[in-house]
């Protein structure tokens, strides 16, 4: 039977590969009559949580099927079972009308399932070519031929990639391309994408969608997870909505609004953040950057070029920009993780701090939330209490006579969990076992609740569901209301327009003049983001 299936697969691959697979031929009855994928009664429990409970739905051939749900609803867990990384406790996976066992990702790929992960499954120190080869079951002996195929396929789908580049030198968008191209090379019949766009720029999203529509036209089904409901409306034919691990609704996204889908997800009224009124944020200047220049930390990065910026109390200043234009280094320079050449390049409340480290700056009231969550913003193997303690022990007074006051820290962690609706069994859970969005809520919440006088935050709602994003944004607005100065670095223009009093744009390591958000248009910012420099995808084309 296995042999038969493989033969069937080969036939299929060949057809898709030659691009002749438009629509179903009449002879392809087996494919036509059955859904490509059918889940029936999938249940999966982790210690303390039931991540999936009796989940059933179908994905038709050539359908783009959305999987929606709040953070922690069990979306990633579900697709990991489809890809053979996790084993269901009970339930069946039916593929082309036949019940199958998917014991491993190899088995999934043999069936024709490809997967793009929420947290990338890449190897930083290796080349694009190695990464692609590792993700294929039979990459062949000839590396040059594989490199050529990578170039061909990536270009024909509008996702140019240079096989020789090492992954750590690539932008987030380019990294994601590796995952996509790795799947495309194996001509998948079902592509699972777990939040592929949460880190992409609008242009990159546009390109990705073109690719996905092309795949759909070739008969490939797509199971698509995202929190960006407008994108779901634009792209998907069907949606299944999970809440607390159960299927609570199914709908046609084209006939819903983003708001109505958000309400289906949370099962309650959805409250969005009101745009800030103009004219706020006229307090004293709290932080200044003066001609801040810095070499990039990573090879292939862009240097920061003479950045001038001032941030007032009570103000939210947004910095828009395509990822990889120096945001990481800018944040590190402000946080103190990287020191400026002169003390005067970074000024906090009139004090030059350019040569001070992160702890000293934190003491002065400057808190930062970095972009990478695991390993940078949180220690994955440590409990939430310990993670809270790490960043907040000074400001929140968790020290008692030279010892750590664990009870107090636990109380603080519990408050973060409550205020920001972090879905987790408790304060002693390891940070790494939280779902992506919940970890983000915890990290951002941890900083906001410390009531920093100056808060610098990158991508505050990255991977966070609509309701939780609104909570985080509201908390930022409230914090600014108490007089704190806030700098938000993000590529989500809608978010910046909602939150900010002023918006500046970072492009190729330069930061533009900040403009009042009430008068600036999306087009204007979009143009500046592209800059004279164009997109930062040099070398990849």
């Amino acid at each position, binding site marked *: 039977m296995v042999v038969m299936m493989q033969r069937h697969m080969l036939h299929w691959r060949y057809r898709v590969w030659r691009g002749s697979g438009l629509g179903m031929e009449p002879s392809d009855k087996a494919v036509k009559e059955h859904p490509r994928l059918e889940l029936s009664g999938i249940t999966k429990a982790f210690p303390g949580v039931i991540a999936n409970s009796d989940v059933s739905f179908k994905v038709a051939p050539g359908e783009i099927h959305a999987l929606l749900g709040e953070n922690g609803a069990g979306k990633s867990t579900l697709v990991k079972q489809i890809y*053979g990384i996790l*084993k269901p406790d009970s339930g069946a996976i039916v593929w082309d009308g036949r019940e199958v066992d998917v014991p491993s*990702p*190899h088995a999934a790929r043999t069936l024709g399932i490809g997967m793009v992960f929420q947290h990338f499954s890449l*190897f930083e*120190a*290796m080349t694009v070519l*190695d990464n692609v080869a590792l993700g294929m079951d039979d990459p062949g002996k000839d590396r040059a031929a594989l490199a050529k195929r990578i170039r061909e396929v990536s270009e024909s789908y509008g996702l140019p990639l240079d096989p020789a580049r090492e992954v750590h030198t690539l932008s987030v968008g380019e990294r994601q391309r590796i995952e996509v191209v790795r799947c495309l090379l194996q001509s998948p019949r079902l592509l699972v994408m777990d939040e592929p766009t949460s880190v992409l720029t609008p242009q990159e999203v546009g390109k990705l969608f073109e690719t996905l529509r092309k795949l759909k036209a070739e008969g490939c089904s797509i199971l698509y997870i995202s929190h960006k409901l407008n994108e779901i409306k634009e792209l998907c034919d069907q949606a299944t909505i999970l809440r607390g691990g159960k299927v609570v609704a199914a709908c046609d996204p084209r006939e819903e609004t983003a708001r109505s889908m958000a309400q289906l997800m949370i099962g309650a009224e959805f409250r969005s953040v009101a745009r800030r009124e103009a004219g706020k944020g006229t307090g004293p200047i709290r932080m200044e950057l003066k001609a801040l220049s810095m070499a990039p930390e990573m090879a292939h990065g862009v240097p920061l070029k003479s950045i001038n910026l001032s941030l007032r109390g009570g103000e939210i200043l947004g910095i828009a920009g395509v990822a990889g234009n120096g945001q990481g280094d800018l944040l590190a320079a402000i946080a103190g993780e990287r020191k400026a050449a002169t003390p005067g390049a970074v000024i906090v409340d009139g004090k030059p701090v350019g040569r001070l480290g992160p702890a000293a700056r934190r003491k002065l009231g400057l808190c930062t939330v970095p972009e990478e969550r695991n390993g940078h913003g949180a220690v994955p193997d440590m409990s939430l209490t310990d993670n809270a303690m790490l960043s907040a022990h000074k400001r929140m007074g968790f020290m008692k006579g030279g010892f750590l006051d664990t009870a107090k820290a636990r109380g603080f962690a519990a408050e973060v969990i409550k205020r920001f609706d972090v879905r987790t069994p408790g304060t002693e859970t390891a940070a790494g076992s939280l779902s992506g969005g919940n970890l983000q809520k915890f990290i951002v919440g941890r900083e906001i609740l410390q009531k920093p006088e100056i808060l610098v935050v990158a991508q505050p709602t990255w991977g966070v569901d609509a309701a939780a994003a609104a909570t985080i944004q509201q908390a930022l607005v409230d914090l600014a209301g108490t007089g704190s100065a806030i700098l938000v670095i993000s590529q989500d223009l809608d978010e910046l327009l909602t939150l900010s009093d002023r918006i500046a744009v970072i492009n190729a390591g330069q930061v533009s003049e900040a403009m009042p958000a009430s008068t600036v248009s999306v087009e204007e910012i979009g143009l500046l983001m592209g800059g004279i420099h164009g997109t930062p995808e040099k070398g990849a084309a």
Partner: protein
Amino acid sequence: MNIDTILPMLLTVIAAATPLLLASIGELVTEKSGVLNLGVEGMMLVGAVIAFAVTVGSGSALLGIIAAAFAGITLSLVFGLLTLTLMANQVATGLALTIFGIGVSSLIGSSYIGTPVEKLGALSIPGISDLPVIGPLLFGHDILVYGSVAMTVLVAWFLKSSRAGLILRAVGESDLSAHSIGYDVIKVRYLAVMFGGLCSGIAGAYLSLSYTPMWVEGMTAGRGWIALALVAFASWRPWRVLGGAYIFGGVTILQLYLQGSGGIGIPSQVMNMLPYLATIIVLTVISAGPWRGRLDAPACLGKPFRPAS
């Protein structure tokens, strides 16, 4: 100084470098898979005593070497069971392995102290091995000397060009990614740990059968630790490990020669430090230089991996 004094010196350099090279190349493979096994010294000692005992008992050095390899593999399997299956701390387990190895080897070896054994014979090629200078220098060694160099070539090729090597590096680079693509992280690490054990065992065999053909308690004299340091200072690159091992061997012999020839007024303790110092300096300068490779250390080195299922 003439060729007659230099030649024996060069030969001893090779002899001093070989056990280091063997042990380091094995540990390099282990570490590339993300496992830090600090038990090298212990595995070498057990390898040394088992090789000695089996050679004395059977009269066959080859059997001795094979037995040493198996002894190394067995100890490394114990290490693997504790750290990979039972998730024990790698550093603590490695240290325990070394202490265990010291104890067990002196227990087994107590009855062999003072027993003679025939030095491992050189593989000689009639004609060529008799050539002046070149003959003894290149063609007059035992099988383990050639084996160590061959092993380096093999490991360098394996890591750089084979698919299995790519997977091994991937596992050491990101166990989570490797797991989610579908590689059996634990299995790969077991194999890498076993290779490390095999090499350490053989390195021990070289010490007790060739370098000083006898059994002395604690005869590795810290070479296992040097091998460990060598791997890191060589930035996990096989050819640099080879270079490092030979520099170490070279300076060891040089300082012994200087001390023996009446000295130049430097305290012998300082002279004894020289090989370590020289090796560290040379390799540090290399790995700090402009031609250094970025991100050389396997990113998951020493981290336990527990897959969710």
